[in-house]
Structures are given as structure tokens and as C-alpha cells.
């Protein structure tokens, strides 16, 4: 295939992996890149030393372009982003924050920077400070979308930006790929679809549930991690939403995070408090969400785990390899296009 994104990054298919904590790991990233897409490493659960090791592991597993993400709202994310820059990672995808400094540094070595956005304001700002593409996240996406859906957001951004738009949210097959391209996107990002592939490290319990659950089996609320977040509708998720912010749990879970990212807990705690109450509350929310997502993805805990998924889980019924999926999607997209070409001739 050939789009501005395949040309920019040097990949075969304009399809990228969303950076999903505990799923978009080194092997998964390499699998997606080796299959002709763009793998994105999720650095959320990693400290800077682990991030550096992960990058070198990916480089052993693939000689194809790949990327890594940085969710700037999380503690430790800026340090991870610095590692990505030092390691000259080809594509850096940042979200939930201002990444102008990342753009500046990445461009020095020819790296590309993609900003994840949910509306035209964020997208314009990202373009203004030099991002190379935006990832437009529709309401239907897993985790952090906002109200506007892909069908409306993608064409609106595509017509108002000069940089390419990558559509995220609702894409699981070739029909969706063809639709995204028709809307003016230059590529798509997939999380839910790619986490249900043979190479994905997602626990089997949740792969199975993703294949069984329907398009309406998700919850979309601020009560899971403090900002709008879409997760699989399970008893565990319903309980988490009902409970809302659990501060004592946040205290314990944030200690675990401190251990994980290699920051003394005292430093993290003070840092968070100094960031203001609303941010501290946000991070407390995130600390609990972090734990629940880990329980789902790694342990397959169907009681306490919570898994971010998109509405497109209802379109997913199998577990192909990544290479099978991409090849099939291109054929499906061409078939969908042939049908529309004939209808609209």
C-alpha cells in the first residue's frame, strides 16, 4: 500500500499498533513491524532503564521501523521520552500532554513524532509545534477518546490539517480501513484488533472475552481513571465504576508504581502532591486503573481486572497472526472499494 504514512515511515501497510500497557511489549512491537505495519512500544509500565533495554530488544527482533509512546500525564513519562530520544527511536507517539520539546529533539535525528488527539484544537496545536502526524481518536476507541466519533472527527481533522491523520477507534477489518481512507486518513491505528492476535501477550481469558463480547459491551465513563475511558463491560469494571476513586487503594497501588518506575515513593508522593490537588486526584485514579489493567492483561483476572477495549470488539471473532490480519485487511479493503466503485460509478 502507499499513503503519506507508509512513505514517511517506510512501512508496507499504513497500520500501526496502539501503545497498550502490558500488551504492546517488545515481541508484539516487533511482530507488527515485521508484518509490515508500525509497532509502538508502550512505555507506561517501564522505568527509563527498562525502556532502554526494551528498545535494544526490539532492534534485535526487527530491522524494520518501529515506535514507542509516552503518555505525558504519567509520572516517569518524560524520563522515558528522553530515553527514546537518546536511542533515536524512529517514531515517538505522545499523548495527554504537550510534546513540543520531543518534536524538537526528534527532528534533529530525523525521527518522526505523532501526537494522539481527540479534537481539532489539540490537533491544530500539535501541527503548530511541528508534529509529523496526528492520531485522531474517536469516541469508539479503547481507553481515552472523547465524545466525537471517528466518522466525524477524521474528515474534520483531515480537511483542516496539512499533516497526515491516522484514524484510531472502530477499526478492525478491511471495511474500516477503506472507510478511514475515504474519510481522508492516511493510516489507521488499532489496539483492540491487534491485541487479539496470536503474537499478542494479552491473557487468553481476555482474548476469548474480546471475541465473545458485543459492540455494546463496553463502559465509557470518567469513574474508572478520572478521564473519559472506555473499558470492557465486566462485573469487575462495573464495580470499579460504581466505587469511583478509592484513595486507600491508590496509596498502595502508587507504591507499586513507584517501585516499577524506579522512583523512591517519597519523591513520587511529594511530586504528585506538589502538582496540585486535581492532578494528584487524577494520578490517584490512574494508579488504581494501572493496577486493574495489569491484573487483566497479565494475570487474566476476570474478577478484579479491567481491560480497555473499543466498541469494535463486537466485530472481532478470531485470533489470526498479525501478518494474516494485515494481508486479509488489504484484500477486504480492496473488495469493499470495488463494491463501492461499482455502486457509485
Amino acid at each position, binding site marked *: 500500500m502507499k499513503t503519506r504514512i*507508509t512513505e514517511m515511515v517506510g512501512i508496507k501497510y499504513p497500520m500501526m499498533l496502539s501503545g497498550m500497557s502490558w500488551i504492546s511489549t517488545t515481541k508484539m512491537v516487533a511482530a507488527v513491524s515485521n508484518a509490515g505495519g508500525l509497532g509502538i512500544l508502550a512505555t507506561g509500565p517501564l522505568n527509563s532503564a527498562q525502556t532502554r533495554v526494551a528498545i535494544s530488544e526490539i532492534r534485535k527482533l526487527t530491522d524494520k521501523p518501529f515506535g514507542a509512546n509516552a503518555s505525558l500525564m504519567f509520572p516517569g513519562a518524560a524520563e522515558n521520552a528522553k530515553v527514546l530520544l537518546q536511542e533515536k527511536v524512529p517514531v515517538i507517539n505522545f499523548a495527554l500532554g504537550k510534546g513540543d520539546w520531543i518534536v524538537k529533539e526528534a527532528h534533529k535525528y530525523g525521527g518522526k513524532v505523532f501526537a494522539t488527539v481527540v479534537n481539532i484544537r489539540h490537533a491544530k496545536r500539535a501541527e503548530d509545534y511541528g508534529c509529523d502526524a496526528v492520531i485522531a481518536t474517536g469516541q469508539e476507541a479503547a481507553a481515552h477518546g472523547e*465524545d*466525537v466519533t471517528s*466518522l466525524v472527527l477524521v474528515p474534520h481533522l483531515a480537511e483542516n490539517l496539512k499533516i497526515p491523520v491516522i484514524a484510531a477507534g472502530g477499526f478492525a477489518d478491511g471495511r474500516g480501513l477503506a472507510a478511514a481512507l*475515504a474519510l*481522508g486518513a492516511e493510516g489507521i491505528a488499532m489496539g483492540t484488533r491487534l491485541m487479539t492476535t496470536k503474537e499478542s501477550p494479552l491473557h487468553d481469558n481476555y482474548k476469548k472475552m474480546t471475541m465473545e463480547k458485543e*459492540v455494546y459491551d463496553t463502559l465509557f465513563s470518567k469513574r474508572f481513571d478520572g478521564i473519559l475511558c472506555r473499558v470492557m463491560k465486566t462485573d469487575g469494571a462495573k464495580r470499579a465504576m460504581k466505587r469511583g476513586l478509592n484513595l486507600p487503594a491508590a496509596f498502595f497501588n502508587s507504591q507499586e508504581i513507584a517501585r516499577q518506575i524506579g522512583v523512591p515513593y517519597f519523591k513520587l508522593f511529594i511530586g504528585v502532591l506538589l502538582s496540585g490537588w486535581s492532578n494528584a486526584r487524577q494520578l490517584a485514579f490512574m494508579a488504581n486503573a494501572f493496577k486493574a489493567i495489569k491484573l487483566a492483561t497479565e494475570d487474566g483476572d476476570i474478577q478484579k481486572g479491567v481491560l480497555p477495549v473499543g466498541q469494535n470488539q*463486537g466485530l472481532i471473532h478470531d485470533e489470526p497472526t498479525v501478518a494474516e490480519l494485515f494481508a486479509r485487511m488489504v484484500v477486504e479493503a*480492496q473488495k469493499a472499494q470495488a463494491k463501492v466503485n461499482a455502486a457509485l460509478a
Partner: protein
Amino acid sequence: MYNTAITKMFGIKYPIICGAMMWLCKPRLCAAVSEAGGMGNLTAGNYETADEFRAAIRETRKLTKKPFMVAITLLPSVRITPEHHKMYVNVCAEEKVDGIEFSGTPLDKVAGMEAVEMLKKAGVKMFHKVGALRHAKHAEKIGFDGIYAAGIEEGGHPLNDDVTSMVLTPKIASSVKIPVVTVGGIADGRTMAAAMALGAEGVMMASRFIATKECEVHDNIKQELIRRQEFETVIYGKSIGLQGRGLKSKVLEEVLAIEARHGGFEELIPLLSGQKVKEAWETGDVDYAPLMVGQSIGLINDIPTCKELLERMAAEAGESLAKANKACNG
């Protein structure tokens, strides 16, 4: 020449259908859309007696020889009763209208299978607007001719399954045999091409048709739709079990505030009255009543005639397809 299950069913040029809009889908706009090569809409709820409703159908027929849809909403309301619903169905059968867009409760549950049979015998094509596969399957089972698959982005009353068009259209299109029309998020040729790539045989638009020369609404409203962006609509009414999407406005902020403090139905009713909506359309005061438009308003930038709009959409759809084709075959 376009060739989809919908253009063939009605013998029309473009698979573009106008959706129901209370107070706006009257003979003039309806005929303008049909004359432009799409399918206009005459919304039954505008008329309280059989005579008025029949007169409106005949008036439309004087304005156009081309086919048009009638919209019947099968939901309980203060003004429109179950008796009205039956009257609308009877008049449609007698007048042998081309097609009906039903929304709300399934027709067989409101008026029995005899109503379905009567319309079939009269040659009326029946479509049900749904937000879920289960409802589409029911419509198919009782003999409907097509499905309007309505995503959460639509203005009006999207189902509280909250599924978006990008996901709902392929879900339904791959699971029923009758044609699917995408509703919600459609405003131009790009979105139409996308819907068809997802498996739709046509598209339905409502908000887009408000900002056309032929729509009989105050000019302020048309200008407002050009100004406002896709994130300037809100979902309200969840607390009373009938969610709606409308333009962000003072009145809907008030509605949401009442809902947030668990205010009752009685407090909300005066703010949501249909009569006030009629006045708002006429006076152009967007803050006076809930104006039910969808996220597609972010894609509206001008006030064309219906003919200009449909011709442009066809050209845009062709261009965006050509670009997508090139990407996939490059």
C-alpha cells in the same frame, strides 16, 4: 449512474435520504430533496389529523413526481398518541406512499402484524431506524425492506447502546440480508463513501439538510450550524430513559443541570416541549429549546441548494474513493 440496493428500490439517482425532523420536513424541503435526486422526507408528526396529513402528502406530490419517504415515530408523546400512530399508518397505506421511516417501538408491537401486511399490500417500503443488531433482526423478521443503522453521533434519540456508526454499520450490514442505510455522522461525499465501504447501501442525513436554501427555518439556525463544531452537541435525557443529542445551548445546559441534581420529569418537561422547538426554529433563538442536531454539524460549512449539495456529494465521494483506491493498490 449510481447503482445501489436503495437507488434500485426507489428508482432514484443518489442513495441519499433525508431523515425525519419535526417541523422542518414539510412538503417544500421534502420535494426539493427528491427533485435533487435523493429521497425527501415528510414527517408525520407535524400533522394532527388524517386530513392535514393527507393534504401534506398530496401537496408534496404536486411539487414532485419523484418518490419520497414519510417518517413515523412510534414513541409515546404528549401530543402524538397511539391513535395518531395508527392513523398515520392507515393514511400511508391508502395514499400508497413510497416508503416509511419508522423509529421507536417496532410497528408490529404498536399496531400488530396486520399493519405490516396492509403496508406491504399497498407497496409501501418499510424501514426501521435502529441502534442495535437485535432491533434490525426483528425488523427483518417481520418483513421490513431495509434498516436505518443509527450511530450515537446522530441528532435526535440515539439508542443508549451508544454504538458509533463506524462500528454499527458493518455490524448490522454483515448480519442482515436487507439493505442498510447509515445514519449519524454523514454530511458529505467522504462520509457517504466511508459508510458504503462499511457495507451501507445508502445514507440518511438530517442536520445537513437544515443548512440548505430550501429548508424553512430561521436563517440564524443555518448560520449557527455553520459556526458550530462537531464537539458542540450534548447527550441529555439519560435520567428519564430517553436520551437525545442536541446542539449545546443554554436550555440544554439547564436540562443537564437538573439531571445532575436528580431533578424530576416534571421539571424537565417544560424545557423539552416540542412546541418550543417549533418556535425556536421559527425565531432563530438557539437557546430557547433543544435543537436536535448531530455531530455532523462540524462538517457543515455552507448553505447550498439541495441539488448543489447532492451533486457535490457525488463528486466528493468519487474523489475520496479514487484516493482510497490508489492507497490500496499502490
